[in-house]
């Protein structure tokens, strides 16, 4: 087996929204290619903010972000790396912007240079994996909250990412859907970060959990 690679490495991260106390204050974090970790913390402690910094969607005031071994400071560094980190937003409405589910799933692969036919094939495969085989022609705004959430995960999976970054994936899911999500994640065997308030879910899915408070991480 190849030794684990460092997928994400952030050091001495500092971030605050203008005119407010710092949300992230000297934070260090490392994700190896062999681990799926959990991230918890009180509402508003900065979990989503941290993920957005890792994705390069917010610029930290200080500190470094390294993704897949590459130092990222500017938009152009993050751009090619983002599709490799399957990021699923807290609110699925933000993620699904295409008319139909099939269009939305095909969007990522098309951006990566796939032909329409290939993209449609990827979309169908993802839907099969999610257990929603005939959702392709469904209109995205007609889906239920839980269905949206699963399809949003699908849009990340359609990119064949190296890792997953999920912001509260179990929101709006009933127990059955959570079970399906657990099954999907287990089959994928992808490393990554899961933000969740659902301790039961995290205990089943991850080996390690971090607690975010006062801008820093502690292992629990």
């Amino acid at each position, binding site marked *: 087996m190849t030794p684990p690679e460092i997928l994400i490495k952030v050091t001495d991260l500092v971030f605050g929204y203008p005119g407010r106390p710092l949300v992230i204050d000297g934070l260090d974090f490392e994700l190896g290619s062999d681990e799926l970790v959990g991230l918890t913390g009180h509402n508003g402690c900065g979990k989503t903010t941290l993920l*957005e910094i890792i*994705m390069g*969607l917010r610029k930290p005031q200080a500190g470094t972000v390294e993704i897949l071994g590459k130092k990222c400071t500017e938009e152009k560094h993050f*751009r090619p790396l*983002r*599709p490799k*980190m399957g*990021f699923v*937003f807290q*609110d699925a*409405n*933000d*993620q699904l*912007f*295409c*008319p*139909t589910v099939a*269009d939305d799933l*095909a*969007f*990522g692969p*098309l*951006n*990566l240079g796939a032909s*329409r036919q290939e993209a449609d094939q990827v979309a169908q495969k993802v839907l099969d994996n999610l257990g929603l085989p005939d959702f392709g*022609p469904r*209109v*995205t*705004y007609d889906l239920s909250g839980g269905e949206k959430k699963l399809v949003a995960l699908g*849009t*990340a999976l359609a*990119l064949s990412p190296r890792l997953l970054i999920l912001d509260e994936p179990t929101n709006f899911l009933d127990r059955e859907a959570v079970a399906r999500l657990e099954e999907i994640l287990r089959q994928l065997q992808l490393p990554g970060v899961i933000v969740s308030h659902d301790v039961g879910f995290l205990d089943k899915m991850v080996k390690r959990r971090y607690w975010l408070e006062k801008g820093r991480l502690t292992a629990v």
Partner: protein
Amino acid sequence: MSALGGTVNFLSRTDPRLKVLILVLWSFLLAFVQSRAAAWVGLVGSGVLYAFSGPQSLIKGLSRLLAINSFLIFIWLTLPFSFSTPGTEIYRLGWLALTQEGLDFSLILSLKALAITLGALAITSSSGVFELLAGAKGLGAPEKLVALCQLMTRYISVIGQQYARSRQAMRVRGFQPRTNLHTLRSYANLAGILLVRGLDRAERVRSAMLCRGYNGRFWAKTDFRLKFLDLGLAYLTLALGLWVTILDAA
């Protein structure tokens, strides 16, 4: 099938590019019609198109049509009386004169308005918005414009839901609209929060697109192929269009 899951019918199975083209040309043609006969034929033609847009409830269609055209009432209330050039007077009530020219003009205007909206109704009710947008793009409409319309249609329902939810939240806390400052301020807050949330959402949607490798290109299905059925629709509307043109020229 239409993108909104409507029933399958003649119009819904035809090429969206053709439908967009028909929508534009037919509306323009009718807008320029001058004669009463041509306007009548236009209305009949739109009716034929509407009939081809599948089994629809007549009452629903009529009520939609009337709702869109409710402004015609004002035309009928004013136009027949307000012809400045002295025409053939039919009836006089004090200083109000009803003229034949005024009546004719109102009738033609109404027929045209009804014909255009009925035609548009036939096209739009037999195809999803997104399908028509894809059709417009297939005809060479600017990508940015199509993307803008596409996102707008997608999020208008989200904003609508947000509005409904905020209204509910206001009501469960005992809000009742009255004519006072509190009511005005509450509505201003509601409008404000919708705007702020809309802006916020736009930013997050952009982020989500960036995360999936978005690089400025928007993808819509455009691999259309003309079918036998499309030819039929093209001939039908061409015939209707010619009929209207000839009548109007005569």
